[in-house]
């Protein structure tokens, strides 16, 4: 039984935020002295780095919360929006939305959400129809649906954008926060934070979904309604984020597992832990993405690389205990 304290994690997050704001391609790592002298640098930090940092925190926390909710609801530690195809559906919806409505951003998020909900329902139905229902049924269904929507994204791009005028499919499939600014923060953060807040408040309740359906009924919970509601909020959270950032994968898969390892299975601790750890993970990854080399590295590549490393460590850790 782990009794890890939350304090060091919060501290780490704050240090990382300060570090990230002082770091960039422009003049590398700066000290306070330079900062006070250089007004262009101040502008850069205020108008370019800070909104990007805020968005990376939102993206990290949001995708992690989404992941831990799905893993607990489905009682499957491999579930995450990417594996279940919801992220890919969101990317498909968002790019379609932009193609049809290039001037406003709202339709992008709406299309992304609708796509995400459709994929959720389809994956659940499909998983139920697989014979010999087991842990993997959901994953198989998710693999099929995610491939379907990725292909759909490719088709949308190919047919509808012959002049390659819109962001390439690479952006959608690998994710990036390079275009972050305060207006993007305004469009993405409030809704995401509201969704996270709701899921945070419900965190104890979500623990209950591990019980049998009949037991839940006896406790007054209509499992279907509540689960669809909670999954719906998770999907809204995920699709809002992905409609801006493109597909950033592995966060929803890895962070919840790490959070549970350190803080236990009770959502009262592991959900807030996921928020913090997810924020740290993506902030760190995005800082690498924009600083490591002259060019921008797609965020999804870094989260995949780090995520896969951590995944391997988790697997080895598991095996040595078993």
């Amino acid at each position, binding site marked *: *039984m782990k009794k890890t304290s939350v304090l060091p994690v919060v501290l780490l997050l704050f240090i990382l935020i300060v570090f990230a704001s002082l770091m960039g391609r422009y003049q590398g790592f700066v000290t306070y002295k330079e900062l006070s002298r250089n007004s262009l640098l101040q502008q850069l930090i205020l108008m370019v780095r800070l909104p990007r940092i805020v968005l990376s925190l939102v993206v990290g926390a949001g995708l992690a919360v989404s992941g831990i909710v799905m893993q607990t609801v489905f009682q499957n530690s491999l579930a995450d929006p990417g594996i279940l195809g919801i992220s890919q559906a969101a990317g498909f919806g968002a790019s379609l939305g932009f193609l049809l409505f290039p001037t406003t951003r709202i339709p992008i998020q709406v299309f992304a959400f609708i796509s995400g909900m459709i994929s959720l329902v389809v994956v659940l139905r499909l998983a139920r129809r697989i014979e010999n229902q087991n842990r993997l049924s959901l994953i198989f269904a998710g693999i099929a649906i995610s491939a379907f929507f990725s292909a759909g994204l490719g088709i949308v791009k190919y047919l509808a954008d012959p002049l390659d005028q819109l962001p390439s499919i690479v952006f959608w499939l690998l994710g990036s926060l390079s275009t972050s600014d305060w207006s993007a923060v305004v469009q993405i953060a409030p809704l995401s934070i509201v969704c996270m807040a709701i899921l945070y*408040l*419900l965190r104890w309740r979500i*623990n209950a979904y591990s*019980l049998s359906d009949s037991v839940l*009924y006896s406790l007054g919970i209509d499992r279907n309604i509540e689960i669809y509601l909670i999954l719906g909020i998770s999907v809204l959270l995920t699709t809002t984020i992905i409609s801006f950032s493109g597909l950033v994968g592995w966060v929803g898969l890895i962070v919840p597992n790490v959070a549970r390892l350190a803080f236990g*299975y009770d959502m009262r601790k592991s959900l807030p832990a996921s928020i913090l750890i997810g924020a740290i993970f993506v902030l760190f990854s995005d800082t690498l993405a924009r600083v490591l080399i002259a060019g921008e590295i797609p965020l999804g590549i870094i989260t995949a690389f780090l995520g896969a490393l951590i995944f391997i460590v988790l697997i080895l850790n598991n095996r040595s205990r078993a």
Partner: protein
Amino acid sequence: MHIPVLSLKGVNYTYSNGRSFSFHNISLRIFEKSITCILGRNGVGKTTLLLIMLGFLKPTKGTVEYSSKLGSGEPKSKNNKISYLPQYERIQEKMKVGDYMLMGRIPFISPLILPRIEDWEIVIKYAGMLDLIHLLDYPMEEISGGEFQRVRLGRALVQESDLILLDEPITHLDINAKFKMMDLIKKLNALEKSIIFSSHDPAEALQISDFALLIHDDHSIHYGATKEIVTNKNLSRCFNMPITIYAGKNSFSCIIERST
């Protein structure tokens, strides 16, 4: 003693997929503060009947009515008054015993808040009653079968319900644990709770239940006071084997006489 807590009126139930049988026109009344045992062979529909009583399965015809104490029958108003322990219950193995028992407080805790101190105090009270205090911090995967059953009863108690439904609570326990469980059930009954449990061992019914409900292979039922219903003749018909009841000083046992 003869106030009905639960009534089935003309209940018909047909399985929608797979199984081929159904219940026809079942009417009976379960009385307050009684212990009722549902007896029958495996697969005859004991679990189904319990779920219909719970309200989880809806009858294809007929109604299930609950006493005013239990509420009007809608999930929210009634269901914090009925506890249910399935035969095979799904749990999260790493969940702690105390947290599992806390689940019984769900009907009283709004979804958007966390359990309060008073909820936890109720858990401790019943944990004490069931001798579980020393286990509260253990994950579910580390307790024994018998302890697990007690913990589940703890959840039912924490829910402070008037009616407790148990699906084969005694079946899988060893002899020692069997008697302990039967004592527990009587203890719960003494707390003024109505209890319905299912079993395929008539001895359990004879041991502790006031009423018995026999489900025969053709899905007809026999319901009444245990002493009147649980007879050699009825049991033999119910289980398709010649059964003889032997009464000991304080307990009962059922023997199957083979024809030599």
